[in-house]
């Protein structure tokens, strides 16, 4: 899955290999079982017993179905939505039947296969409906995230100062000026590209280098960038403009308020099936009032969630007088998740 273009294909099945999706299914089905137990019981203790009783059947059934969906997830992704729904329903019913038959034989739970199958179908329908609504609810947010990417990503402060810096080198060093304008063009091309599409890590890193080169022109010796990117998996996919705003923040909050030389660290590596990125800058607590930092971080957090759900995280902290942002996300390539 290299795209989450939900506007072009309005309905899509959830990714059954996503941790967040799996967790939601498990919680939802258990809540349904709990609700059923509460409804049918005569008292609290009775409800507990009913729930435990039901769990004995529901849990193995649920886990089996989730496991099978996990296995066939790539196939399901390739189907169109309705066929996919039918396939999910078929999988659920088939394994509900299998589990029920096996369990009913060993336990005294022959409480009617028909009802089990109907309940399973209802649960599947409810969950698919929920995931469809959820996907729809988030697509405006996605469009908005894209807008934010266009409007708030590059600070006007950076744009005008960069143009000013380019103007200042045009006469002395026309080639340097040309290079700077090319960098600026690349940066804006990315800013105006489709924010819903994954990009390759190599491209995002190239963008970081262009950006750093522009800042270098403006700030000269004051900015030092340490690149630790040898272990970065260039084929990893990530949402666009996840790292660039962090570097921009690092320069804006870490270098510009300082009168001396400051170093920004860019570290990207692959660790197993995860991609780790870390950006560090000198910390100036007295300048935290410069607005915009939180907003950029929230924007990135939201987009990571839209792309990776619960599988990505972003954290910030201050370590030894340096401000550090860490991002962890799953290692995905165009060939699919890492195996």
């Amino acid at each position, binding site marked *: 899955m290299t795209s989450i273009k939900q506007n072009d294909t309005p309905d899509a099945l959830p990714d059954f290999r996503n941790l967040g999706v799996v967790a939601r299914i498990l919680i939802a089905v258990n809540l349904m079982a709990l609700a059923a137990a509460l409804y049918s019981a005569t008292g609290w203790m009775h409800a507990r017993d009913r729930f435990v009783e039901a769990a004995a059947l529901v849990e193995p059934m649920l886990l089996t179905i989730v496991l099978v969906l996990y296995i066939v997830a790539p196939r399901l992704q390739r189907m169109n939505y309705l066929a996919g729904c039918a396939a999910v329903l078929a999988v659920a019913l088939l394994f509900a039947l299998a589990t029920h038959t096996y369990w009913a034989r060993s336990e005294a739970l022959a409480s009617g296969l028909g009802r089990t199958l109907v309940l399973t179908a209802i649960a599947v329908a409810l969950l698919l409906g929920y995931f469809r609504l959820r996907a729809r609810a988030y697509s405006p947010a996605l469009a908005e995230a894209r807008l934010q990417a266009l409007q708030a990503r590059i*600070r*006007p*402060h950076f*744009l*005008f*100062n960069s*143009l*000013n*810096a380019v*103007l*200042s*080198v045009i*006469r*002395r060093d026309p080639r340097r000026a040309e290079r700077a304008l090319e960098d600026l063009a690349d940066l804006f091309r990315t800013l105006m590209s489709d924010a819903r599409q994954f990009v390759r890590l190599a491209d995002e890193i190239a963008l970081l280098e262009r950006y750093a080169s522009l800042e270098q*022109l*403006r*700030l*000269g010796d*004051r900015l030092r960038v340490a690149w630790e990117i040898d272990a970065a998996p260039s084929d990893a996919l990530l949402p666009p403009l996840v790292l660039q705003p962090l570097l921009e923040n690092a320069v804006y909050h870490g270098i*510009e*308020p*300082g*009168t001396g030389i400051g170093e920004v660290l860019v570290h990207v590596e692959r660790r197993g099936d995860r991609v780790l990125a870390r950006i560090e800058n000198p910390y100036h607590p007295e300048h935290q009032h410069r607005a915009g930092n939180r907003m950029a971080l929230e924007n990135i957090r939201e987009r990571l969630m839209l792309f990776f759900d619960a599988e990505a995280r972003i954290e910030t902290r201050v370590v030894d007088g340096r401000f550090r942002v860490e991002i962890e996300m799953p290692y995905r390539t165009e060939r699919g998740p890492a195996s």
Partner: protein
Amino acid sequence: MSPLRIFIADDEAPARERLRELLDDIAGEVPSEVVGESRNGVETVERVPGSGANVVLLDIQMPGIGGIEVARHLSRLPDGPAVVFVTAHDRHAVEAFELNALDYLLKPVRAPRLAAALKKAQSAGPPAAANLERADARAREYLPVSERHRIVLVPVAEVLFLKAEQKYVTLRTREREFLVEESLVSLEQEFADRFVRVHRNCLVARAAIRGFERAAAGDEEAHWLVKLEGLSEGLAVSRRQWPTLRALVADK
């Protein structure tokens, strides 16, 4: 007419370079010479007085002190320069400039606009202190102290106490003492959230207060001393201020 003496304050080297080029370009219309440069607010305040500048081109987003505070310090100079603010993009500042009749340039700066601003600055002279104060009503972050005819800026955060002597106010940091040419009353007003009055002639930094101890017997007015971090001697607390201070410490 003698050329305008111009001081350029900007933390980005290319931006300073650009202004020099533009000044060259408009030299036919507005003759000028660059008499000094600086890369941050503190440098600007310290170097402008000795440079003999008539006009300061002042970037408002430099490390250290905000541009308007720099202008406020410059406006206290006896023969203060005119100030033209320069900003790449700062909506709030631009609004404040507009409201208070302060001239500014937007980066990238255009030559004709620069020429116009310099001519205007030449005739208008230094900005009015009152306008600057209205443009940025926050308390300053530095206090100017005079030292051998130069201005030195002391960060307000480093000040332990301010004490009025006969004619002037002394300012004490952990390391040493300076003279301030401002009244204790106006300082008390501006920095009300940072300093508290312990005596009719003394303000101490709230953050530096470490405790109180009884004064030696025989002192008529004070029977308590306030102890400050990094200072061995205590400062007398007047009877009148004692209840306020005691409440302050109880809150801590």
